[in-house]
């Protein structure tokens, strides 16, 4: 950075200050060029007045649960969102909810040009926090608890209100820090951001945090090893379902409409031309000598298209099986297929039951135009001496199976994605003051942000 002409004020270049603790004599470095209000001696835990040249002792605390070691050592520098920051302070805080004590860590970061910033960490979940410059507007239940907060045009949902205690402090703080001090903390979330208000006596401070993955913090501060794995779902952790669920369903609906239109189009275009309609009689005795026969020749016109063969037989607790061959008289090309028509019904302890149908239909795809006939070889239930059956052939019928497959192929990922988003939001909100109780409750709070 160019300094240009010497400053008119002639003040010397600010330097980090090296001092000694008035209690135990240990070396203390003031890294924030006078921005700190208090500094905590790393060896004897005396909280000192950083504004006082003699570092007057303000408080002495015993680390109740032993020494807490910051994961990012004081004095470490890192690049956060393009700006260099130095870790100058560290505190551990705790909150008691339903008899369980939760601990989290906060780091004070400093840059002489950009000022103070914070990092917080709870079970491997990190947040990059700065003080709000604009006042959020809170909507509450009349005379009651807060519901939402509006900040810079975005709505944050109330997540949790709790008392936060300061358990352990180290290094410099730009405010008067004391161990044992209780603050009323209220969090509002709009993943990946969290809006927090911290009330201490009559002073309310608002801050805005953005979720960071441990890996990003480790990269920013070039820390050795791997960050501790994040446990559970954190209040403002971005959902792994990156695509907006509503968007997926809108796309799905659009495809479904498109498919329906396609189906309607093919249905209308299909000629469904009847080319054969005959009733035959099956006789066990005759079929012994002459098992198969051929139908009259019929013409299949137009472009290569589908041929539908329908079979009807008035079977009742019987079956008939027809070996079909669709044969092109001109080329000899044949399509072989067998169809069974069977129908069973009766009564048992569960009531009446039935199985099968007296109708059968099959579609042969892509049959070229030409002169065709069917060769039919019937077989039947040994108990059946004879039965009439009807064979109907239509040229160019629409086929819808492919559309059903396409529909399912689109539906399945949409459902899976919705379920994943739903369970993630469920885990998030089950940790809040507003645990999900019903599907309706969740639906209104599922992860469709933006």
């Amino acid at each position: 950075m160019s300094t240009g002409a010497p400053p008119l004020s002639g003040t010397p270049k600010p330097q980090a200050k090296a001092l000694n603790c008035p209690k135990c004599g240990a070396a203390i470095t003031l890294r924030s060029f006078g921005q700190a209000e208090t500094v905590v001696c790393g060896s004897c835990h005396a909280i000192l007045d950083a504004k006082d040249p003699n570092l007057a002792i303000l408080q002495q605390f015993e680390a109740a649960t032993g020494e807490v070691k910051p994961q990012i050592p004081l004095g470490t520098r890192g690049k956060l969102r393009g700006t260099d920051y130095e870790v100058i302070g560290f505190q551990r805080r705790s909150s008691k909810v339903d008899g369980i004590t939760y601990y989290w860590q906060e780091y004070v970061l400093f840059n002489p040009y950009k000022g103070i910033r914070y990092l917080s960490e709870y079970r491997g979940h990190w947040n990059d926090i700065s003080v709000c410059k604009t006042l959020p507007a809170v909507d509450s239940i009349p005379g009651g608890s807060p519901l939402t907060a509006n900040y810079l045009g975005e709505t944050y949902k109330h997540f949790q209100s709790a008392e936060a205690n300061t358990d352990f402090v180290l290094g410099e703080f730009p405010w008067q820090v004391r161990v044992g001090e209780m603050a009323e903390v209220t969090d509002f979330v709009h993943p990946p951001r969290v809006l927090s208000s911290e009330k201490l006596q009559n002073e309310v401070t608002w801050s805005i945090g953005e979720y960071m993955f441990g890996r990003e913090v480790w990269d920013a501060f070039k820390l050795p090893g791997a960050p501790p794995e994040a446990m559970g779902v954190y209040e403002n952790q971005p959902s792994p379902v990156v695509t907006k669920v509503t968007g997926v369903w809108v796309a799905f609906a659009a495809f479904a409409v498109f498919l329906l239109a396609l189906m309607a189009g093919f249905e209308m275009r299909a000629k469904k031309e009847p080319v054969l309609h005959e009733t035959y009689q099956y006789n066990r005795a005759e079929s012994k000598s002459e098992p198969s026969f051929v139908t009259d020749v019929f013409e299949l016109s137009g472009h290569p298209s589908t041929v539908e063969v329908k079979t009807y037989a008035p079977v009742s607790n019987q079956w008939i099986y027809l070996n079909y061959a669709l044969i092109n008289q001109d080329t000899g090309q044949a399509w072989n297929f067998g169809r069974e028509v069977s129908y069973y019904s009766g009564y048992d302890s569960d009531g009446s039951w039935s199985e099968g149908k007296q109708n059968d239909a099959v579609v042969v795809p892509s049959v070229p135009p030409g002169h065709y006939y069917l060769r039919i070889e019937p077989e039947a239930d040994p108990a059946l001496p004879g039965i009439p059956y009807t064979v109907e052939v239509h040229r160019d019928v629409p086929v819808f199976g492919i559309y059903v497959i396409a529909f399912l192929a689109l539906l399945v990922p949409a459902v899976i994605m919705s379920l994943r988003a739903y369970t993630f939001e469920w885990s998030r909100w089950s940790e809040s003051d507003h645990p999900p109780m019903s599907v309706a409750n969740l639906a209104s709070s599922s992860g469709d942000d933006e």
Partner: protein
Amino acid sequence: MTQPIANCPNCGAKIVFRWSSSVQTVCQFCKSILVRTDVDLKKVGQVADLPPDNSPLQVNTQGQYGHQAFVVVGRILYEYDQGGWNEWHVMMNDGTSAWLSDAQSEYALSRSSKSQNLPTLAMVHVGQQFTWSNQRYTVSVITAAHYRGVEGELPFQYWDKTDVTFVDLRTESGKFATLDYSDPEPALYLGEFVEFDDLKLKNLRSFEGWG
């Protein structure tokens, strides 16, 4: 722009006014407080050296506010029971002046506003709302401060004042207002919070160990 030039009546050093409307300046060599009269500069007092502070700005720092370039020509350093802050007097390239306040790296740029019927100090309390220029402002804090020192050019005589009360007001949209009760008539300044990066500041101070 013509820059009026004169000599310090105390030490004879050259005094250059970068802003033609400056009323007061401090001689950078002998720290005499100089007030402009019609014909000459008059020494009205002397300032002690300013205490070391941590603002990255200094007199001659250049920056940009919207499409306007500005240069820092002076400052007032205030102190209150929880610390201090700087009000940097900046000259915009259209010849007007504004204030860039720097309180613990929170920057706000404001200009004098000619609103009438300003409340007396006794009438103001935290949480109260006022509307100026169609903006609703809420009183956020009332600060009793005293001024710790001055430097460079200022648009008014500010050398004989000691205590001053400020009423800060904010909006939900990042706007900012200050009521200044240093004179019998309150003065209103309207402005907004600005981002350090948006000011594109040049000629900043350097800090040991920070490039």
